[in-house]
């Protein structure tokens, strides 16, 4: 089912949590709503579910206005952050609930409910747990029950609120992959809220980056990672190094340091260049003006990558570089050494970009 969100605004008291949000979501897409806490992402999800009202705007499901339709008639599946399993029902009863509460006319027979629940339980690999109560399950198992319960009503849209937020790193990764597989199988339009950029980049077809009740950028993981539209998106999607300077004739300058920024031809006094740690090169000799001298303050090697923290010699700001272990070994650098840092790729933002 395709979803259109048109000019949605929402306030809680005097706080505007959503400001004129408009998004088109295509049928069968897996969407991540990514943003820091307080960005309005969960509110938007709850508005889609009908659990929260909206002040202005409309929501269309397949072209049909459902803004004032109650949640129970929206045909959605909602997975809550803390699962919200019915604590007095066992796993089987939890999953069967959505079918059992249907009006008599549309309610499947007892046999059929049983078949359906068993099918879902084997899908989430919990066949042997159907008599357990939620309190007897681990976090990951509860989350899978919550998913099975939401899927039991054959929702047209699956909405997940921080589905993996409360799980430990390993289970999280496993469930992430599993959700992706599930989505490939069922192709139900799915939207999940997360504040974890890695999760969003890893799973989603498209990412909606939100900040302060507004949408900063919508795009595929590749688009938002490689071409962030604003400093916020750049910053939120990963670690960054900041190079401040003056923009002049397509170059970003600061003292001796001077680097090409061909996308900007007009001048600005305080522009900021962003570079990811893995886009930083370390050189032992200074060959041109496109590098800055910096002293290595910390070296941390985990697995195949070496993380190097440096302090700039000219202004004392800290930089972070990530390079493959091989490359690090070949460089033969040590803590305390002064090296030259070259940003391979620099994304420059001018002050106007910050005020978005």
């Amino acid at each position, binding site marked *: 089912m395709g979803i259109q969100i048109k000019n949605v605004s929402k306030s809680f008291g005097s706080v505007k949590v959503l400001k004129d949000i408009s998004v088109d979501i295509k049928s069968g897409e897996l969407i991540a709503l990514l943003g820091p806490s307080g960005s309005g992402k969960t509110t938007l999800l709850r508005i889609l579910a009908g659990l929260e009202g909206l002040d202005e705007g409309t929501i269309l499901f397949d072209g049909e206005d459902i803004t004032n339709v109650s949640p129970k008639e929206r045909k*959605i*599946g909602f997975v*809550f952050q803390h699962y*919200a399993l*019915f604590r007095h029902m066992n796993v089987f009863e939890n999953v069967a609930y959505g079918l059992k509460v249907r009006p008599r006319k549309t309610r499947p027979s007892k046999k059929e409910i049983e078949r359906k629940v068993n099918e879902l339980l084997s899908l989430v690999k919990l066949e042997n747990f159907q008599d357990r109560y939620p309190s007897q399950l681990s976090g990951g198992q509860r989350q899978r029950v919550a998913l099975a319960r939401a899927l039991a009503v054959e929702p047209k849209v699956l909405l997940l609120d921080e589905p993996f937020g409360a799980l430990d790193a390993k289970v999280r990764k496993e469930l992430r992959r599993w959700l992706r597989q599930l989505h490939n199988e069922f192709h139900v339009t799915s939207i999940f809220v997360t504040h974890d950029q890695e999760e969003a980049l890893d799973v989603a077809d498209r990412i909606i980056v939100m900040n302060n009740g507004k949408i900063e950028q919508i795009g595929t993981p590749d688009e938002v990672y490689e071409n962030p539209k604003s400093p916020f998106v750049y910053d939120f999607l990963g670690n960054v190094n900041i190079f401040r300077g003056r923009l002049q004739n397509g170059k970003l300058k600061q003292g001796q340091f001077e680097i090409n920024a061909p996308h900007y031809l007009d001048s600005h006094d305080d522009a900021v260049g962003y570079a990811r740690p893995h886009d930083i090169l370390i050189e032992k000799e200074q060959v041109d003006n496109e590098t800055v001298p910096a002293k290595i303050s910390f070296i941390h090697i985990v697995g195949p990558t070496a993380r190097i923290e440096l302090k700039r010699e000219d202004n004392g700001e800290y930089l972070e570089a990530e390079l493959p272990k091989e490359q690090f070994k070949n460089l033969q650098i040590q803590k305390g050494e002064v090296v030259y840092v070259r940003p391979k790729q620099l994304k420059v933002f001018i002050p106007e970009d910050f005020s978005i």
Partner: protein
Amino acid sequence: MTKPLDVDRKMPIVKKAVSNPYPLKESAIVKWSLITISLLYISLFLILPLISIFVTALEKGWETYVASIVHPDALAAIKLTITVALIVVPLNAVFGIAAAWLITKFTFRGKNLLVTLIDLPFAVSPVIAGLIFILLFGAQGLFGDWLFEHDIKIVFALPGIILATLFVTFPFVARELIPLMQTQGITEEEASISLGASGWKTFFYVTLPNIKWGLLYGLILCNARAIGEFGAVSVVSGHIRGETNTMPLHIEILYNEYQFTAAFAVASIMSILAILTIIIKHIASWKAKEF
């Protein structure tokens, strides 16, 4: 048990920690004196009076005991008390659930005022609660003339006793449920509705099962108070023997007439009810915790 700073290096410093591994463990003297004090206190003020009720009740033999209970006035009092409880407890259950539901699952203006008002009967003396109803429905009261014209009896009759008991006991269920429902939150209800359940189905399948032990606990307390209420009922009942006397009022009358055995016999029935209540309450609270 702290020692002054020990300068003697040969003293094993860790010894104390080994011999007393639990930081909250008390010495034997403190422990036993606390136990003795509480046991003495409980025996003196709770168990002894309770025993004396039964001893006095049975003082003149089993036959007198039975006779004072099957006396028509006593039977009428028991019947009236049970009738009042049977009407008041379900009414307050409905009110308590509705109020707790409203307060914990919705936000609205004046919510704090409502929470405060629910506590009002706890703050007001029962006698005053009784007087309120006399002032409203009594012969000289606000609605007195109207009620007289329509030949409706409230004060000095069953409706008045029920109203006074309702007033006094109405916080019990709500007070018990509000904190419970607050900690449970509303996400299970939201989940139920998102799965297509109606409001009623959500209430019966999700909310009610989650609060059932807390509700039972509140109902038991409410019931105990409804049976035992004296002050408010005394003001509105009119003390008509065999008609508007509840058990506590009947006991008082018997006592004032120096019929000690009869008074204590009826009191023993009330005590048995109270003990049963405590046992059920204990099971309910234990179940609630387990749940």
